[in-house]
């Protein structure tokens, strides 16, 4: 493979990492509080607001059931409003964030719900405020699950980021389609797939490692 092509792959890899990295950060910034709220706002819970809970649940489900490629196209005006353009990696971050935040929220909700309810009662019994319970009990206790959730979200984002290539988002997916498919360069397609596989493996291994490190529940000596 020529140095030019290798450069293209390297450049596309960085574009993908840029999109996925920023989208994962923003998706977590929105998804984490949303997920914590979803996990704690049913009737009788810490931030009980059953109606708001139900409305947010419907919005999250609606976003998650919209096919990503349709979401990307549908929100182009919004993307333009936020990013100033609808083309390029920076613009692609907008739909990636919007798709990942509800996904992360659901994963966070599940991880938080795994925390033993007795711990919430315990913290309440010594006068913890709801926010203290979230930050000192729920999130630390759910941390292994939260890290695995985030890992899963990043892996999914890598897949989504390949799709935004279709609308000029750049990155590995874009490269694979333009060179590998449209110009029929199977070695390019293969290279893109190999890089993606390596990235997913790397992310998953790092996530597993971190989750294991913070998990004190089943430590054996």
């Amino acid at each position, binding site marked *: 493979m020529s140095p030019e092509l290798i450069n293209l792959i390297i450049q596309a890899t960085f574009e993908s990492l840029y999109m996925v990295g920023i989208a994962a950060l923003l998706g977590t910034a929105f998804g984490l509080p949303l997920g914590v709220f979803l996990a704690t706002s049913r009737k009788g819970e810490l931030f009980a607001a059953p109606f708001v809970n139900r409305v947010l649940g419907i919005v999250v489900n609606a976003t998650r059931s919209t096919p990503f490629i349709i979401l990307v196209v549908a929100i182009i005006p919004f993307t333009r409003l936020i990013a100033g353009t609808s083309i390029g990696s920076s613009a692609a971050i907008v739909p990636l964030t919007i798709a990942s935040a509800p996904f992360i929220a659901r994963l966070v909700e599940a991880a938080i719900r795994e925390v*033993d309810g*007795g*711990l919430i*009662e*315990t*913290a*309440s*019994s*010594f*006068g*913890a*405020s709801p926010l*203290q319970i979230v930050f*000192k*009990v729920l999130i*630390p*206790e759910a*941390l292994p699950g939260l890290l695995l959730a985030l890992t899963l979200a990043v892996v999914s984002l890598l897949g989504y980021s390949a799709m935004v290539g279709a609308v000029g988002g750049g990155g590995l997916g874009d490269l694979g389609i333009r060179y590998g498919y449209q110009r029929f360069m199977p070695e390019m397609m293969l290279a893109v797939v190999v890089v993606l596989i390596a990235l997913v493996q790397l992310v998953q291994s790092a996530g597993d490692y971190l989750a294991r490190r*913070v998990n*004190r*529940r*089943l*430590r054996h*000596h």
Partner: protein
Amino acid sequence: MVRFAGISKTYPAYRGKPGVNALQDIDFAIPRGSITGVIGRSGAGKSSLVRLINGLEKPTTGRVIVDGRDISALAGRELRLAQRSIGMIFQHFNLLSSRTAADNIALPLEIAGWAKADIKARVTDLLALVGIADKHDRYPSELSGGQKQRVGIARALATRPSVLLSDEATSALDPQTTRAILDLLANINRELGVTIVLITHEMSVVRQLAKEVVVLDAGHVVESGDVADIFTQPRHPITQSFLAEVIGDSLPVSLASRIVAEPSAGGQAVIRLQVRGAGAGDTLVARLARELGLDVSLLSARIDEIGGQPVGSLVLGIPFGMSSGEDAVTRTLAWLSQHQFPAERLGYVA
């Protein structure tokens, strides 16, 4: 110290489940510095009762006064401040798996906004107090049940509460560890003067530790008062059933199988008498034999101590000749009744 005034607690019907009257007409006081046992079968309302004391639940009617303050009327920040003077320990310990023993104990102090240095010193003292100074950096998954409950106790005492609530704190522990934890609680009560409220379904816990007892059944207080008084004069069937767990009301199998309804020549009448309270046990059989001139035999005996008082039952054999037998039994029952030992004739053995 803790006073319940006209308390009732009703859980409303929810999602097809009918409403529940968990507690009704609760009026009693827990003296300062006491160790009070609240005993009842599961579903008697014990958990609801204890959660009213620290404001985790609100009564439907009535007031709960803790340290002169109506805790049931407090909410938000005021309630959270009041909760710092009420510690609680739990059946399943409820320790944070993500924190070491020391950091678990530090949690209520962090929540109360203590300075880091003060927390560190306090945690060191508390670990020593509960006898696990060497477990400072251990995670709960590395501790035994007894050690976990010690961390729970240290955590509950961290903010120097005046009341310590124990919700079945030894129910998940083996008898030996239970004993050690109860001893620790007794020490804490003695040395720190903390009022301890023990929620339990186990008579052994009340017997070993409590001075006062409240017997709860179907949401009502059926008896309350001094442990020795209540269990030497149990009035309510539920109290009697708890007492039976300690002293047993069943006869040894071989004896029970020999008892018949009709007397036989040269046999014995079988009399069971209850031993309740001071001056009871020791010389009873000897006095009975001497004063009535009978060769009384001891067929079975079970005596234990509750609140420092002997409590139990004796099964005696009274010689039963066909001619004079009924007279001996009558005189024995009269003598026992005169000396205030409740007694009954179970039958006869050959």
